[in-house]
């Protein structure tokens, strides 16, 4: 190497190192963790959780000359142990689609035209000041924890209208209400370690081979190594998961309610339920009208009587499941020595009786004592990287406050006011609108009750992911006085329809923290600069908050008259992090997290200091400090063997609804779904994901390897239905529901096989948007819509 080249290389390496150090902040606890060194190939490797699903795999990101050049599975990560799925291996490419948004755009004369950041902030502040009550933030389970926390504080502590709700409402709200109504506190008791210990894995309407591939491999690779495990697939359509399963049991849509009741009925009838466990740790519960999370008490005899009609024969009528299959399931649960893990995701959550089916599956586990031992757990999976971390824990929902607190309870508001240093009585007790309601009101004229006038969307694509897009989203784009702000990285369908578009930094272009499905909080540092003028979502929120403060918005001051968001350097001097050029002078993530962390004590969801997460590949809460000063995570919650807060007995439900350390076993009847196939619309329509794409495909469709493998949406049809319709493989058909129509090619015996009389369409394709057709009917408690069941019809397309 020439001397000059050497000097240049050395200078460049030093500059890169300085940039990497900068992300870590010039102060705070994180600083001792120096940026990882540069390899002799010019590549610097650092850890980050994958950007995509809720599994929470860690990747090693290889960065060279300011660009991501390589990805490797992180061998130190417990979640994935060095393995990834095809999306994870290609996650680095998500940054480099050629149409990244690089400057703020304002719709002027119908066209999106570039404006400055200063102007953009003014436009947002104008909207918020003109109609503070009608200004809403629609967020995401892809928000990082500090991003969600900043937005939460701006809305609940600043504007105080409580109009904040996330897309996670559409993906896991029913799991939340299931955990709350059963255990009194949210999030699974078990963790991924259960997958290493279970003898039986029961998947309830779940296709982890495609949706949580790394977790699925954790189980099927055990099989390859010789472990005897029974994989049982409870499903409405044959999937890739079915191909690996020892037993596949098909049921008709909504039949899951009957199956769970049928299992409970048989356990009681055969006497194989766990009397000791139930006597020690459970109460029985039934619904009230209107339904609540608390319900009302019932006795064992009343519970037994309620289940009496769920005989195998009646269950067969309701679900299509054969009596011998139901008896097989009940027999498994009746065997005390087996370890049974149940997994579910959207099948049970996107359900108009989502809370009920979540309760019933927890109930089957509790009734049979399959709870609290490694491998014995009912575990819900999440679809987004921080649906747990940012939505459920930070509480970015219309009714919630951080740490499992809610706005409706005065004592909870008081705690939040204390941490946020707000005058007493500042926080509004009235919840804002849940997602469907927020968009409905945004799509309704103001004089007809449409009191939401501005929505600021961050990190999500509601123009494609809301149900019934023609009713919930599209009218707003034609109504006067409705203003849509979108922060995103690509021109998504939502961004293209927006009035103001803000270019965002993504993933390793910024610092971040997220929380996965197993209560694991994860952290990463900024590794590469964002393109053009793209900036962190968290900065955008802080900058708008500051603009509102400067313009005198009343709520943006704490009780000492200071701005709600304070950042300080190591010497205690204030740092104006809302100025972009000063944003990385401190580690904003760390300072917001340290404030947020104080909320985690109320519901025993203890989080460790930020610096602990810098060292770890994530830690599962509660993370409790040990006498020697170290921090210990918890794998099995409520189990005395592992959870430091469970002290009284083997299992202690210490946030019990009934305040007696007992979980609730609920009875919910089978009920018909709101829309069923009829003469006019004779088919069931189900929607979902595929392995290669994530959500609405805005990132994965820009990755050539993934797009080529799965280039477009399709309509999965049973062979006999295709024959009856006279349509051939690949033929384009017209699929219609009462809400919309879509032309799609037919795929027979493709990635899945639906039952006769039903079709499946994936929702990743922005050009072929199935949510033009889906139904917005939702669960009465969780407010989560059902994307899995509505009535549809198919006809041949008449040649143009």
């Amino acid at each position: 190497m020439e001397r000059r080249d050497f000097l240049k290389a050395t200078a460049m390496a030093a500059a890169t190192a300085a940039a990497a150090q900068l992300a870590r902040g010039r102060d705070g606890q994180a600083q001792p963790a120096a940026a990882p060194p540069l390899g002799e190939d010019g590549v610097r490797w650092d850890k980050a959780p994958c950007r995509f699903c809720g599994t929470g795999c860690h990747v090693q990101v290889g960065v060279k000359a300011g660009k991501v050049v390589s990805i490797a599975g992180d061998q130190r990560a417990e979640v994935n142990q060095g393995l990834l799925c095809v999306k994870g291996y290609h996650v680095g490419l998500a940054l480099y689609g050629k149409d990244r948004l690089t400057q703020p755009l304002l719709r002027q004369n119908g066209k999106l035209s570039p404006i400055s950041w200063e102007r953009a902030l003014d436009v947002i502040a104008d909207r918020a000041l003109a109609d503070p009550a009608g200004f809403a933030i629609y967020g995401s389970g892809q928000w990082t924890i500090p991003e969600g926390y900043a937005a939460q504080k701006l809305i609940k502590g600043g504007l105080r209208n409580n109009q904040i709700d996330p897309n996670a409402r559409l993906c896991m709200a029913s799991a939340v209400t299931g955990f709350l109504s059963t255990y009194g506190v949210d999030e699974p008791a078990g963790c991924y370690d259960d997958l290493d210990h279970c003898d039986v894995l029961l998947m309830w309407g779940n296709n982890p081979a495609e949706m949580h591939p790394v977790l699925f491999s954790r189980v099927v690779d055990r099989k390859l190594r010789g472990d005897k495990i029974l994989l049982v697939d409870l499903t409405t359509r044959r999937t890739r998961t079915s191909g690996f399963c020892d037993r596949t049991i098909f049921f008709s849509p909504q039949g899951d309610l009957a199956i769970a009741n049928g299992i409970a009925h048989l356990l009681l009838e055969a006497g194989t339920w766990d009397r000791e466990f139930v006597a020690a740790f459970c109460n029985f519960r039934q619904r009230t009208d209107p339904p609540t999370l608390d319900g009302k008490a019932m006795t064992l005899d009343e519970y037994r009587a309620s289940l009496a009609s769920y005989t195998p024969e009646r269950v067969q009528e309701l679900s299509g499941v054969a009596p011998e299959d139901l008896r097989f399931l009940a027999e498994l649960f009746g065997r005390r020595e087996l370890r049974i893990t149940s997994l579910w995701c959207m099948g049970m959550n996107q359900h108009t009786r989502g809370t009920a089916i979540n309760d019933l599956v927890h109930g089957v586990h509790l009734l049979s004592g399959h709870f609290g031992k490694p491998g014995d757990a009912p575990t819900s999976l999440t679809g987004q990287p921080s649906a747990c971390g940012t939505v459920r824990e930070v509480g970015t929902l219309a009714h919630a406050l951080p740490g499992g607190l809610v706005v409706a309870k005065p004592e909870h508001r008081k705690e939040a006011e204390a941490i946020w240093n707000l005058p007493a009585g500042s926080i509004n007790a009235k919840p804002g609108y849940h997602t469907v309601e927020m968009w409905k009101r945004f799509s309704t004229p103001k004089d007809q009750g449409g009191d939401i006038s501005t929505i600021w969307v961050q990190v999500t694509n509601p123009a494609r992911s809301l149900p019934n897009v023609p009713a919930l989203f599209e009218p707003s784009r034609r109504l006067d006085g409705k203003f849509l702000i979108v922060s995103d990285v690509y021109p998504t369908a939502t961004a293209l329809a927006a009035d103001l578009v803000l270019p965002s930094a993504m993933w390793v272009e910024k610092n971040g923290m997220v929380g996965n499905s197993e209560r694991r909080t994860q952290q990463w540092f900024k590794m590469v600069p964002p393109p053009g003028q793209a900036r962190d979502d968290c900065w955008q929120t802080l900058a708008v908050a500051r603009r509102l403060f400067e313009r005198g918005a009343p709520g943006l001051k704490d009780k000492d008259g200071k701005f709600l968001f304070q950042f300080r350097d190591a010497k205690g001097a204030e740092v104006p992090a809302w100025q972009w050029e000063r944003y990385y002078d401190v580690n904003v993530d760390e300072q917001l997290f340290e404030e947020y962390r104080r909320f985690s004590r109320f519901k025993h969801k203890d989080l460790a200091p930020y610096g602990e997460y810098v060292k770890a590949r994530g830690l599962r809460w509660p993370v409790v400090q040990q006498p020697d000063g170290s921090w210990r995570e918890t794998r099995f919650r409520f189990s005395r063997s592992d959870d430091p807060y469970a002290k009284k007995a083997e299992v202690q439900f210490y946030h019990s609804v009934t305040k007696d350390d007992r979980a609730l076993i609920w009875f919910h009847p089978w009920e018909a779904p709101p829309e069923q196939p009829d003469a006019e619309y004779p088919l069931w329509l189900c929607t979902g994901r595929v392995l290669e794409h994530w959500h609405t495909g805005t990132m994965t469709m820009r990755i050539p390897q993934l797009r080529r493998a799965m280039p477009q949406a399709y309509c999965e049809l049973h062979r006999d239905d295709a024959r009856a319709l006279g349509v051939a493989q690949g033929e384009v058909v017209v699929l219609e529901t009462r809400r919309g129509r879509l032309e799609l090619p037919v795929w027979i015996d493709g990635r899945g096989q639906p039952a006769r009389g039903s079709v499946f369409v994936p929702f990743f394709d922005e050009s072929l948007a199935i949510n033009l057709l889906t139904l917005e009917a939702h669960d009465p408690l969780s407010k989560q819509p059902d994307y899995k069941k509505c009535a549809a019809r198919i006809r041949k397309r008449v040649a143009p």
Partner: protein
Amino acid sequence: MSGQRGLHIGLVVAATVATVGLLSGVESSGREVSSYLPARPAASTANPGNAASASRSYRDMRETMYGPNAALSDLWWQHLRQVPIAATVLAPATEEERAAALARRAARRAYDGAPPIIPHEIDQLAAPACLTCHDRGVSLAGVFAPRMSHEPRASCVQCHVAARGSPEGLAAASGPGGPDARTFAGWQEETAFVGLAAPLAGSRAWPGAPPMIPHTTWMRERCASCHGPAGVVGLRTPHPWRQSCTQCHAPSAWLDQRAPVALGAPGASP
């Protein structure tokens, strides 16, 4: 035709026997589920109305090649013979051969270390039978199914996806379902991502010293897959009879994520 079908059946039987063999003879855990495990995965038969049919129609069998390798040439089957692999001295690869091998590798992955895409059609639904060919590798009549570079894992299609768009035949669909109707132009553009290139030859302490392994050995622990006698021309070792590769060729703790971070990379400036 009948010969082809016979071979299909033979392969299926072989794959089944292999799978059963793998799962039998294993110690019991004490928590027995064996009685529930069927000989092969079975669907519920009790509910024909809901049970999705797995069988193909006779029309399909007659008119189309069948199964995941249907797109392969007929020659594949007609020249069914294993090319003998000689464990003898091989001539060292030429620079051209090595460059061609690396170019071929690069064409099938986004960056060095990414899982290669599958260059042939696959069964999109069933549990994959990839190991039938790729566990040991097959070389037949110029068609080369490489031996996989890592120990078998069960869900191959979790990481490896088919190169050509599925659903099969749908790319030709016209109208709103076809590729022309894209309103989201960004998809059609190529990515600006530039992946890390494969390393060239590993460094040597002095001329004649055994080269270090220049890449990670994680998921590449079966050296012979690429470097063995049945490996890739251009990457093959000239001494294929030696079996203990890491006796002489040292892997990199840095690349293998084994180096304690505090020690840093060799020659690195932190």
